């Protein structure tokens, strides 16, 4: 889902950048409020986790691949704004250092995988928490977050053929329309990468609960 440079028209990425700047400023402010000696270990490790987990490319039928994001875990632990900042930081490092995702379209990648994934996961968790089995709630939070992000990416890519055609009628930007991008991008996340994100969310949250409980028991904090 890391859109590269050149795939998206300026008429899409410039408004996205204008929208993303104030959102990132709020997210940064909320992250500064959330960061302290106590939260630091989890906040930084889970952000590093999101960077590392995105390197686990999973092949799927059709010759393509994809990966989890780790947004839901941060969103459930620290709220959607902090999660959006942490994922955006990961995306920025990926774009700047590794050329993974274009810098010119950073705002779109940040809005999709950072903001939309985090907010969707957070609200699904909030809505379902204590109403269903905890493992299922965690799975569904992760699944819906990444599927929501994939929808944004599919739309951003799929509208490009409408936004620029050269003199011989060839598209200037991404060449496939929504009829192709929606099934390909959203479909693969519904069926595969959403499931991976769901299980990752479930397992990591259980791991966190386990190590937090251990500490609580040992030091009898509460």
């Amino acid at each position, binding site marked *: 889902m890391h859109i590269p440079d050149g*795939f998206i028209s300026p008429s899409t990425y410039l408004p996205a950048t204008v929208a993303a700047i104030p959102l990132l400023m709020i997210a940064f402010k909320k992250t500064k409020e959330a960061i302290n000696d106590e939260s630091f270990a989890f906040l930084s490790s889970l952000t590093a986790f999101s960077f590392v987990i995105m390197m686990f490319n999973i092949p799927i039928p059709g010759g393509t691949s994809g990966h989890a994001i780790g947004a839901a875990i941060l969103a459930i632990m620290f709220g959607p704004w902090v999660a959006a900042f942490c994922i955006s930081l990961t995306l920025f490092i990926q774009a700047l250092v590794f050329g993974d995702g274009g810098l010119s379209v950073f705002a779109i990648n940040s809005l999709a995988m950072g903001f939309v994934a985090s907010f969707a996961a957070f609200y699904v968790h909030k809505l379902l928490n204590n109403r269903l089995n905890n493992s299922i709630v965690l799975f569904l939070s992760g699944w819906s977050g990444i599927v929501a992000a994939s929808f944004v990416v599919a739309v951003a890519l799929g509208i490009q053929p409408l936004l620029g055609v050269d003199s011989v009628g060839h598209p200037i930007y991404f060449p496939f329309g929504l009829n192709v991008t929606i099934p390909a991008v959203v479909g693969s996340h519904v069926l595969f990468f959403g499931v991976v994100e769901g299980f990752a969310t479930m397992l990591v949250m259980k791991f966190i609960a386990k190590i937090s409980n251990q500490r609580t028991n040992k030091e009898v904090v509460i």
Partner: protein
Amino acid sequence: MSQNKKYLLAFILVLIILTPLGLVAQGPAWGEWSVEEIRAMIGFVPQSIENTKPLIGAIIPDYEISGLSPIASTWISAVVGALLVFAVMVGIKKSVKRES
């Protein structure tokens, strides 16, 4: 170091050691094709995709370091990425402390 920090660090380290598993995926993510792949697919390369160069050249493009094996490149990339994340987070934490 507190018990929690040890567990978290061990968790990230184990994942970093396992990152070469991501190399088993041969194909790129859907849509993230190279110019050659797009040409093979539709017979031409859209102008903007052909001509747009990255604003800043990546230091380790595609997580590959020339002269090193894919596995070593992946490990170094994972360590560099994780360290950069920690460095920025430490920076933010310090700036918050200074402000307060």
